[in-house]
């Protein structure tokens, strides 16, 4: 079989396009996380792949500032000039949409997109990573139906694909029950403050606050709920719930916050005895990565890097088809940072969602404590 571009006997080139600068530069930690995972492998000689060769991974990172058009030019530059083998962790929903047609036509794998919306423009050559926002909506709904069957929800959502997908999924999941959304307020990532929205939500008389926004608005919401004397049950999407991002709101204010997670908790000062976490911390130190160890985005990047390694390992031929084949047929693949009980599973033609399980956690003022086991939606991720 022919060898695809970007892969040689000893190297494979992987391209990343993401916002390294600008207002959402925080997402740049994803690329950094991937590098954190890949560096030690390269120093150890490379990845031993299923076609029998050992290859080093060459990462090429381009900045797109989250502008879809720049993502497209980056993708083209990476594919045509740098001749990468595959793209990884392209951030942003519209950004992946913008390159969908191109990657499909060229037959370039666009693996582990960083977007919670999985049904995009080029299904054949694309694969997401983080759980669909619909999964998170479902698990939040499940929690409420089980514990607060009369809950009146106030929803604060990011007015992008992210929030809109989540909102409709949540509505679907609670329909027919006594749980209801009594108020919903959009935020945009350009909003400097969200107090107006929160005041309105508070005035709606809701007893539950669901927050699906970026980290900044999430932290503001958590602070507001305490500061204003409103004490709703607060559920925060994992995009916004990492301890690092809640810290500015005051951790004491975040007490009681519930979130759903697929990544392990990392506490650099008390790493515990989890091997995966220890490896992550060691790699992080060795790579001198910029993001802080408890940065959820950096961790996600690390997990994506890990997944990439697993996929490349199981690739049977040096072709792009083979890598898609491998990515589409993941069978309970464990990653260092994935919570116990959560693994990557995909099935060609049926299951395009690698992670479909989430575990609920509650913040106790210093750390997240699990609320029960991981809940699996394997094979039943709601479509939107």
């Amino acid at each position, binding site marked *: 079989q022919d060898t695809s571009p970007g892969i040689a006997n000893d190297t494979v080139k992987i391209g990343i396009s993401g916002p390294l*600068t*600008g*207002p959402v*530069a*925080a997402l*740049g*930690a994803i690329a950094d996380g991937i590098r954190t995972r890949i560096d030690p492998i390269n120093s150890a000689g490379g990845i031993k792949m299923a076609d029998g060769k050992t290859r080093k991974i060459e990462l090429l990172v381009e900045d797109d500032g989250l502008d879809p058009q720049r993502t497209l030019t980056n993708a083209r530059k990476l594919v045509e000039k740098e001749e990468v083998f595959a793209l990884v962790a392209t951030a942003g929903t519209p950004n992946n949409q913008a390159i969908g047609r191109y990657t499909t036509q060229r037959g370039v794998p666009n693996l582990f997109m960083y977007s919670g919306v999985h049904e995009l423009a080029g299904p054949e050559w694309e694969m997401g990573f983080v759980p669909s926002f619909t999964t998170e909506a479902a698990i939040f709904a499940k929690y409420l139906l089980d514990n607060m069957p009369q809950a009146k929800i106030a929803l604060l959502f990011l*007015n992008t694909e992210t929030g809109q997908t989540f909102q409709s999924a949540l509505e679907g999941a609670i329909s027919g029950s006594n749980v209801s959304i009594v108020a919903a*307020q*959009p*935020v*945009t990532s*350009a*909003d*400097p*403050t969200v*107090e*107006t*929205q929160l*005041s*309105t939500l508070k*005035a709606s008389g809701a007893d539950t606050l669901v927050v699906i926004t970026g*980290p*900044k608005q999430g*932290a*503001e919401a958590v602070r507001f709920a305490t*500061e*204003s*004397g409103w004490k709703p049950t607060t559920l925060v999407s994992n995009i916004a719930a990492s301890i*690092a*991002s809640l*810290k*500015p*709101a*005051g951790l004491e204010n975040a007490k009681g916050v519930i979130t759903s997670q697929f990544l392990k908790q990392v506490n650099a000062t008390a790493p515990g005895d989890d091997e995966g976490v220890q490896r992550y911390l060691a790699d992080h130190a060795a790579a001198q990565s*910029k*993001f*802080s160890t408890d*940065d959820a985005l950096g961790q996600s990047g690390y997990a994506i890097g890990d997944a990439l390694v697993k996929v490349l390992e199981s690739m049977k031929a040096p072709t792009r088809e083979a890598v898609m084949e491998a990515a589409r047929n993941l069978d309970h693949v464990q990653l260092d940072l994935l919570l116990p009980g959560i693994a990557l599973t995909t099935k060609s033609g049926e299951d395009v969602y690698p992670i479909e399980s989430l575990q609920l956690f509650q913040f106790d003022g210093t750390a997240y404590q699990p609320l029960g086991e991981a809940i699996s939606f394997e094979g039943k991720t709601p479509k939107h």
Partner: protein
Amino acid sequence: MELFFQLIIDGLASGAIYASLALALVLIFRATHIVNFGQGEMATFSAYCAWQLCEWGVPIPLSFVVVGAASFLLGIFVFRAVVRPISKAPVEAIVVVTLGLFVSFQALCLWVWGADQRAFPSMFPSDGWDILGVRVTASVLGILLVLGCLAAAIGGIFRLTRLGLAMRASAYSSEKSLLVGIPVEKMLMLGWGFAATIGFIAAVLVGPRLFLSPTMMMSILLYALASATLGGWDSPLGAVLGGLLVGVAESLGATFLPFIGADLRVVIPIAVTLAILLVRPAGLFGTATVVKV
């Protein structure tokens, strides 16, 4: 009704945030006739430095004082390094230079401290009071108080002192100022220094509310520009009142105007500004100039 008053308070709270940056923008405009788009980013950089000192264990007040003074030097440095060489360039070139400052300082913060948001220490207690069902927090009152004093002080300096007059003159026309013996360059340098310090104070005020991050000030730039325009670019007090007006209008409009809603709230500052400019072309407190040929 409670919601209505609560929203006014919320509006004042966010308005105070806009006003902080607006004040720094107005100051630099008054002192140099430049709108420094990088003002907020320079302030963010200063705030990061203060935060870093605190992290290293320097007491908060001390670090604020030290960084406040250092910001003054930063302003002077920026003036000498990048503004003075183009002081005679056309205005659009100067605009691009300030955009360059904007990009550079933001990137600098990003590079040194990363994109994560940080907790910035607050100067005010975290108390709050319920007054007839409306929540008022100490930090909002504190910010408003500090801003009010600053605006009055700056306005006073510009209006009433020899230094203020000289700074205004230098900003207005360097040639005419030189003719009366005003050391124009020194004045502009002072202007940059003061503006950087005021910018730092603004960042100290808003930091705890917006959380320290490289893009902290960028998110309020448009609002601050609108506030300054609304209040009149030559009036510090106008900038503060403009900010509050924008904040309240935004808060109420986003909630009570159904066709706007929270997702379109960004149109409110501009709509309000436009409406006021059409009635008072120089802004609420700006002085209209007369040009004769």
